[in-house]
């Protein structure tokens, strides 16, 4: 236990370092201030998400569907972290820089694996807490609380994410093992994992679609819908039913079944992984890309192109980086294809999106097309790989620091390596939508301007933060890819902008002025964002110094 706590302490230090890099000469007070700022930001986000889930639970309770809340909370809390766990598992468990050092310590392998997985379990439980606690609070207030139901609800918050997280880690483990057999193992892993993630998202969408068919029945019989919805959730995810029975009906046997399944599946996954831990890491470390004959000297490129190509290689060389940034591109194209096949009205009517029905759609009229650019802007902003590209140089930062290149050239190459795939994905998606007749040319132009403009702005905000205070001391790229300030600010800032201006253009301006004014506003926002982004880039290129420390 003491060994595990020691190893976890190292991970906590790494976590703090990813939020506030402990750079040489940085005053302790400045670092503490930054950590407090990060904590406040996290608190704000938690409050927003918790508020949203509480409102959702209140909505269910007021509609007479309070009995749906426990299974829904367990299902949501269980599955919310799965997506992130799958993306993070490789950088947390496999291929870490300190692997040799840790494995040379006199600590049992099982302890090492559990300590490393503790990070994944910890973040999954944190996500589950944000989802489940507000829902339970609403349920227990509305349906009446007893000490047993409170205790079981609290216990389910910890237990619910265990098995899905262990299974997601196991899935990442299996995909890693499979990919390691190929010559280009890294790329194969990324492709397999992206396909798996897309399948997960499509599956979740399919579930919503099925539930949405029932949603029409709400008009006729709310109670019947509650039963159907509860049945849909519990049949899709039985542990949710077992936990819910424990909390709602004090059914000890069901809850024991839920607890046993959660702990048993987790223990089994941990045991299998610890047994194969050496082998899988050995496969990753010993993988040799043997040259077929002598390697030829590459064709001459300009420094700009050389860095762009290098950035592409970095993206494909770090799986968690690729997942974070490529998934947005993939989602754009997938949405464009879905829109071209089903049509915008078809998707909105499917019931996958809460609150949209026939009446709402009729009321919205042509303004629904105002939504499209903001959806793609959102996808584009999730793929801002350039925002962390300075920090990702890591221990190789000396190469850029001592290269005879201006900061402008280096940063512009990094930004271009991000703009190129974002631009290509947006153009491809736009062409698909245009050819399938889903959008008019004006919307196509609006889509490109809004998406690229906002992307340019928030990518440059991230680059400015990263260049001003890079973190080169990471031990796992996940510290930078998942938790660093530049990407967090860039993605959240982009989301706030897209939801804020999107709501303004879709919901307010058409009523206050006209649909044409809403289109004009969207284009204006895109243009202004692009100009601001460019100004910020010029400032960063002028003021940043890409030093090692």
């Amino acid at each position, binding site marked *: 236990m003491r060994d595990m706590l020691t190893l976890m302490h190292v991970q906590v230090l790494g976590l703090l370092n990813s939020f506030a890099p402990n750079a*040489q000469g940085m005053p302790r007070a400045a670092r503490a201030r930054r950590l407090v700022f990060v904590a406040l930001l996290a608190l704000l986000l938690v409050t927003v998400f918790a508020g949203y889930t509480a409102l959702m639970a209140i909505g269910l309770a007021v509609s007479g569907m309070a009995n749906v809340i426990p299974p829904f909370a367990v299902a949501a809390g269980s599955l919310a972290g799965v997506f992130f766990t799958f993306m993070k598992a490789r950088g947390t468990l496999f291929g870490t820089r300190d692997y040799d050092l840790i494995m040379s310590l006199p600590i049992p392998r099982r302890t090492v694996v559990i300590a490393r997985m503790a990070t994944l379990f910890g973040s999954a439980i944190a996500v589950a807490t944000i989802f489940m606690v507000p829902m339970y609070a609403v349920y227990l207030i509305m349906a009446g609380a007893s000490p047993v139901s409170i205790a079981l609800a609290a216990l389910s918050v910890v237990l619910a994410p265990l098995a899905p997280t262990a299974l997601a880690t196991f899935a990442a483990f299996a995909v890693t093992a499979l990919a390691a057999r190929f010559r280009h193992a890294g790329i194969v892993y990324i492709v397999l994992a992206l396909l798996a993630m897309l399948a997960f998202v499509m599956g979740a969408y399919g579930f919503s679609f099925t539930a949405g068919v029932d949603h029409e029945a709400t008009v006729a019989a709310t109670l019947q819908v509650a039963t159907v919805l509860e049945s849909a959730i519990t049949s899709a995810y039985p542990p949710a039913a077992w936990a819910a029975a424990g909390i709602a009906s004090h059914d000890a046997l069901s809850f024991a079944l839920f607890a046993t399944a959660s702990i048993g599946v987790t223990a089994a996954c941990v045991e299998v992984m610890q047994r194969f831990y050496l082998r899988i890491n050995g496969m990753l470390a010993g993988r040799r890309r043997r040259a077929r004959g002598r*390697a030829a000297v590459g064709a*001459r490129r300009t420094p700009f192109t050389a860095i762009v190509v290098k950035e592409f290689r970095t993206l494909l060389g770090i799986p968690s980086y690729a997942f974070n940034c490529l998934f947005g591109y993939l989602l754009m194209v997938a949405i464009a294809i879905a829109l071209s096949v089903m049509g915008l009205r078809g998707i909105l009517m499917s019931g996958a999106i809460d609150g949209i029905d026939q009446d709402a759609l009729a009321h919205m009229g042509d303004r629904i097309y105002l939504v499209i650019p903001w959806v793609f802007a959102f996808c584009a902003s999730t793929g801002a790989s350039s925002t962390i590209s300075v920090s990702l140089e890591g221990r*190789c930062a000396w190469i850029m620091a*001592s290269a*005879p290149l201006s900061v402008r050239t280096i940063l512009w190459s990094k930004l271009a390596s991000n703009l190129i795939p974002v631009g290509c994905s947006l153009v491809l998606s736009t062409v698909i939508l245009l050819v399938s007749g889903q959008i008019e040319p004006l919307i196509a132009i609006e889509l490109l301007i809004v998406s690229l403009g906002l992307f340019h702005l928030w990518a440059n905000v991230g680059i400015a933060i990263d260049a001003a205070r890079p973190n080169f001391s990471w031990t796992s790229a996940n510290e930078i890819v998942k938790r660093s300030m530049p990407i967090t600010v860039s993605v959240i800032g982009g989301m706030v902008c897209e939801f804020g201006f999107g709501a303004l253009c879709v919901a307010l301006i058409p009523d206050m002025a006209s649909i044409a004014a809403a289109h004009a506003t969207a284009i204006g926002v895109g243009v202004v964002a692009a100009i601001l982004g460019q100004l910020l880039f010029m400032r960063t290129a002028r003021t940043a110094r890409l030093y*090692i420390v």
Partner: protein
Amino acid sequence: MNGSALTTPTPSSLPVLSVEHFQKRYGDTIAVRDLSLGVEAGDIYGFIGHNGAGKTTLIRSIVGAQAIDGGRIRICGHDVVRKPLQAKSALAYVPDNPDVYEFMTGMQYLTFMADIFRVPDDERTRRIGELAERLELTDALGDTVGTYSHGMRQKLVLIGALIHEPRLLVLDEPFVGLDPVASHELKAILHELAARGGAVFFSSHVLEVVEKLCNKVAIIRGGELLTSGTTEQVRGDSSLEDVFLELVEKEA
């Protein structure tokens, strides 16, 4: 800018490296204080000191990878702060830890460095071929760097540093991790570079190597330069090790 820094004309009167009253601090701690030294064309200059003496701090500032708090550093007359691109074009850096992009193959890394320093096609092919053969790395250049040992990475970084024929080669503990054959070959390469009019500035803990290889040395302790000059001057009738230990103990 062309592909060979050695062919770039610079006034012969200018030292290849000039450090004047250099100072660097980390927070409240002064890492290096008022340090001055000069490296001429043809010099192989050894920079020795105990752990934490300030060797890497000075080296990082020379190659432009770290800010300077006081003084001035010039490479072939170019101030590293005011004219960083010209200064960096004339030098090459081999850090103490040969960390390079692990997802690249050795050849991709060398091509990348050749692109960054704008080395023409024929020259890059010739130099990579020659240096890889001498350091026995040719057969591994198609493998990803992630599979390299420490010594192989060290060799790769050395080839990448020499690819544009730098006027000043700056190395931080270059012999750590090299096998005896590669170590011998590196000494020969450094001598050849100096003979062609280049200069070498390197830090080391291995005093025997410094004594045999360098025509000039400097000894640093606690961020202050204790002595510098030709190896004969600094050493006198003793060995460099005796002088180093005597100086360090006396100053302590």
